[in-house]
C-alpha cells in the first residue's frame, strides 16, 4: 500500500502527464506550421478511437501486441540487456502459431493452447540464441538481435512458403478453427472488431513480469546479474545461464505477441518483405513505460491509442498520420529529459510552496 502511494504520488505521475501534454503540444505546433488545425485533428483522433465500439475494439487489438513486445524489451533492460530482437522473436511467435494452427489436428482445448505455447517457445528460443551468443561467445546482443531479426523475417517467409502456402497466394492457409483465439461474442460485442483473449493474457504477462522479477528466486538472480554480473558471479549465480534465461523470457513475451496476432487477429501469415514493426515499437513502449510492467501497460495504451487514432486524423483532417510519430517521439523525449519538464513545472511548485508557507 505504501509502495502504491509512493508510485502514484508526486512527480512520478505529474512528470509523465506533463510530458504527454508537451508532446501533444509539440504535435500541435507542427500541425499549425503545416497549416492544419490541431484541434480538429486531435478531435478526429479521439473520435476514431472512442467514437464507436468497433474502433475502440480495434484499438485494444492494436494495444495487445504492444504490451507484450514492450514487456519483452523491458524485461531484457531490467536484466542489463538491450533486446532489439523483439521483432524477430515476434515473427517466430507468428510462425510457430501458424505452423501448429495449420499442421496439427486436435480438439480446440488442446490445439489452441498448444499453438500459443509453441509460438511463445519459439519466440523464447529466438531470444535465447542471442543470449547464448552473449553468454558463451561474448557477442554483443545489440548486433546479434539485429541480425536475428532479419534471419527470422526470411525464415518465417520460407516456412510459410514451403509448408503453409495457400496455392497461388502470398500467404498461408487460414489456420484451423480449433486454433482460433477470436471470441465470437467478444467480437460481436465490439461490432466486429478483432478483440481476442490476448489482451487478458498480455495483462497477466505484465503481472507475471512483476512476479518473476520481484517475487521469485529466479528474478532475484536475473536482477542481480543485470545490475552487477561480477557480484552475481561472486555470489554463485551462473551469469551466462541467467543471460540466456533473461533473453528467453523476453523472447517468450514477444513470441506470445506474434502468436496472438495469428491466432486472434489474422488467422493466416503473410510472406512479408518488411518487419511488422511491433518489436521496434516495443522499445519505445518499454522506454515510455520506464521498464516497469505497469508503465509498459500504460505506455502501450497511449501508444496504441495514438497510432490507431492517427488514421482517423488523416481521414478526417487530412493530417499525415506520420505526425503521430513526432508526438510519440516528443513525449518520450520529455519523459527522458525530465529535467526539462521539472524546469517547466518548477515555477508552479515554487508558487504553491510559497502560498502554503504564507498560510
Amino acid at each position: 500500500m505504501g509502495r502504491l502511494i509512493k508510485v502514484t504520488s508526486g512527480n512520478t505521475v505529474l512528470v509523465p502527464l506533463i510530458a504527454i501534454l508537451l508532446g501533444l503540444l509539440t504535435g500541435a505546433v507542427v500541425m499549425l506550421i503545416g497549416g492544419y488545425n490541431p484541434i480538429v485533428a486531435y478531435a478526429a483522433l479521439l473520435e476514431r478511437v472512442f467514437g464507436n465500439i468497433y474502433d475502440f475494439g480495434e484499438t485494444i487489438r492494436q494495444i495487445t501486441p504492444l504490451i507484450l513486445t514492450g514487456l519483452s524489451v523491458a524485461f531484457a533492460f531490467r536484466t542489463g540487456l538491450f533486446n532489439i530482437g523483439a521483432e524477430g522473436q515476434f515473427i517466430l511467435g507468428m510462425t510457430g502459431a501458424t505452423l501448429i494452427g495449420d499442421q496439427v489436428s486436435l480438439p480446440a482445448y488442446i490445439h489452441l493452447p498448444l499453438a500459443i505455447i509453441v509460438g511463445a517457445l519459439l519466440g523464447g528460443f529466438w531470444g535465447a540464441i542471442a543470449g547464448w551468443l552473449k553468454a558463451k561467445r561474448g557477442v554483443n546482443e545489440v548486433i546479434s538481435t539485429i541480425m536475428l531479426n532479419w534471419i527470422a523475417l526470411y525464415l518465417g517467409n520460407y516456412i510459410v512458403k514451403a509448408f503453409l502456402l495457400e496455392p497461388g497466394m502470398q500467404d498461408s492457409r487460414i489456420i484451423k478453427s480449433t486454433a482460433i483465439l477470436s471470441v465470437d461474442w467478444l467480437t460481436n460485442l465490439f461490432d466486429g472488431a478483432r478483440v481476442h483473449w490476448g489482451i487478458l493474457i498480455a495483462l497477466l504477462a505484465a503481472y507475471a513480469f512483476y512476479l518473476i522479477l520481484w517475487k521469485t528466486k529466479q528474478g532475484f538472480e536475473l536482477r542481480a546479474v543485470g545490475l552487477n554480473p561480477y557480484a552475481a558471479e561472486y555470489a554463485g549465480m551462473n551469469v551466462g545461464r541467467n543471460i540466456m534465461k533473461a533473453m528467453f523470457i523476453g523472447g517468450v513475451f514477444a513470441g506470445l505477441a506474434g502468436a496472438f496476432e495469428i491466432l486472434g487477429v489474422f488467422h493466416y501469415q503473410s510472406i512479408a518483405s518488411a518487419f511488422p514493426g511491433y518489436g521496434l515499437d516495443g522499445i519505445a513502449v518499454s522506454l515510455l513505460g520506464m521498464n516497469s510492467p505497469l508503465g509498459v501497460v500504460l505506455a502501450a495504451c497511449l501508444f496504441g491509442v495514438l497510432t490507431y487514432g492517427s488514421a482517423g486524423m488523416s481521414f478526417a483532417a487530412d493530417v499525415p498520420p506520420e505526425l503521430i510519430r513526432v508526438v510519440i517521439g516528443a513525449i518520450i523525449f520529455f519523459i527522458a529529459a525530465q529535467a526539462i519538464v521539472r524546469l517547466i513545472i518548477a515555477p508552479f511548485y515554487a508558487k504553491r510552496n510559497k502560498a502554503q508557507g504564507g498560510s
Partner: protein
Amino acid sequence: MSTNVPVVELLGITKRFPGIVANDAISLKLHKGEILALLGENGAGKSTLMNILFGLYQPDEGEIQMNGKPVIIDSPNTAISLGIGMVHQHFKLVQPFTVTENIVLGMEPRKGMNIDYQAATRKVKELSEQYGLSIDPNARIADISVGMQQRVEIVKTLFRGADILIFDEPTAVLTPQEIEELMAILRKLVAEGKSIILITHKLKEIMQIADTVTIIRRGKVIDTVKKTETNTQHLAEQMVGRKVSFQVDKKPSQPKLPVLEVRGLHCHGPRGEEALNGITFGVRAGEILGIAGVDGNGQSELIEVLTGLRKSYRGDVAINSTNVTNWSPRKITESGLAHIPEDRHKRGLVLDFSVSENLVLETYFYPQFNKNGLLSYDAIDRHAEKLIERYDIRTPSIHSVIRSLSGGNQQKVIIAREIERNPELLIAAQPTRGLDVGAIEFVHRQLIEQRDKGKAVLLISFELDEIRNVSDRIAVIYEGQIVGEVMPHETTDQELGLMMAGSKESKEGGDKHGSTH
C-alpha cells in the same frame, strides 16, 4: 619554514548535500613549503572540502584566499591555472591511454595540428627524473601497478605547474615499499617549494611527515595542531570522538585440523601470464594465516581460484579434505567458504540492490527465504534487521540502496553477510582498505572472533601492520609462489620487505607486469 601569509586559506567553507552538511564553516590555512594533514572519519567531509578547493564543487558559503587575495575557483581549469593540483582518492587516469597521454591530456604539446608525442615524452621524462618519480612514459595505464599509477598522477600535476598539491588518501592502495617511496617524494616536493595537503587515515604517516594536522569530524574542524605537539592516540581520539585501541588484543591461537590445503596450484592471469606458479600452503582451524606480498604477485588470482571465479590448470585445492578444485563458486561457498572480496564495489555488492537484498546475495535460495521458487521478503527483511543490529550497520533503512552507504558501512554489510553464513574458512582480502580507524578496529575484531570460534581465516593484505597485528602466521607470496613463512612476533618489517621483494634482490620500483616475463 612558513611565512605569515598562507598560500591557501579557506574561510568558513560550508557545503550542503541533500540531507547533510558535508562541510560546516570549515577554515584552514596552508603555508608555503608545509605539509598539512587532514584527518577525519569516513564521511567527515575531507574529500568534499578538497574537491571545493580544486573547483569540482562550489561552496554554498565561505571564501577561498590565495596569498591573501580572494579567488573564485569555478572549475578544475581555474584551479590548475592558480597552481593547484590534486591527486584524487580514486585515480583519474584513462585506462587504455599511455602514461604520456594521460599526463599531457588537456595541455598537449603540438606540432602543427598533431600532438607532438616526442616533445611530450621528453617533457614527461624530464619531470620524472627531476623529482625522482620513476615511470615508463610509453606503458599503458591498464598494465602498470597502482604505485606507478600514483606517480603518474603526481607527474600530471607537476606537468601543469602545480605549486599546491592535494593528496586524497594516496596511501590507501599502496604497498609499504610504495608508501616509503611516496613519503620520499613528498619530502622532495616540499623541498622544491611546493605546499601539500595530505588526507590519510594512517596516523603513522601523519606523524612521519606532516607539519600540521587539521582534524575534521562531521563536517566541522575540531582542532588544528602542530605535529610536534601531539601523538597518534590523541589524534585518533579527537577524530573518532572516543578511545580507540590500535593494538589488537588477542589470545594466542590454537590451531587444529587443516581446513584449507592448497597444493602446487597453477593458473593464468588476465593477460594470459603465469599468475600462480605452483603455490602451496594450508590454513588450520583456529588460526589466521596472513599472506603478505606486493600487489600483483598473484594474490588476486589466488583468491579467484580459491573461490571458483578463475580456473586453475594444475594443482589442487581442498577444503576439509574435499577436493574442490575448479568447482563452481556456488558449490565452493556451500562447502564452507566465505569471502570478503578485495573490490567490494565490483564483486561484493550489487550497489543498486537494497541493504537487505545484499545481505542475502549468497543465501537467497535457502529454504528460510525461498519457498518453491518464491522469495519470502518478510524473512529477508527480518534477517536484515537482525544483522544490522548485530553488526551495527548504519543505514537509514534496510530498504535503502547500498550505494548510498559509506564505504565503511558497505564493508560491514559484506562482513555481516559472510560471517553469518558460519563458514569453516573465511577469506578476507584487503578488508580494511579505505576505512577509518574505527571501522578498521571493527573488522579486525570480527576476524579474530572467527578464529576464536575455531574457524580458519585467510587474510590477504598489502598492509604490513595489518598482517602483523592480526595474523597468527605469515606467508609471503612472490611471483605466484610462497617464498617463506614467518611468525609475526619473530620477524621485522625489514625481513618481510625483503621476502616480499623476492629473495635478497632489491625491488625494481615500477611495472612488474612488464618484467614478469
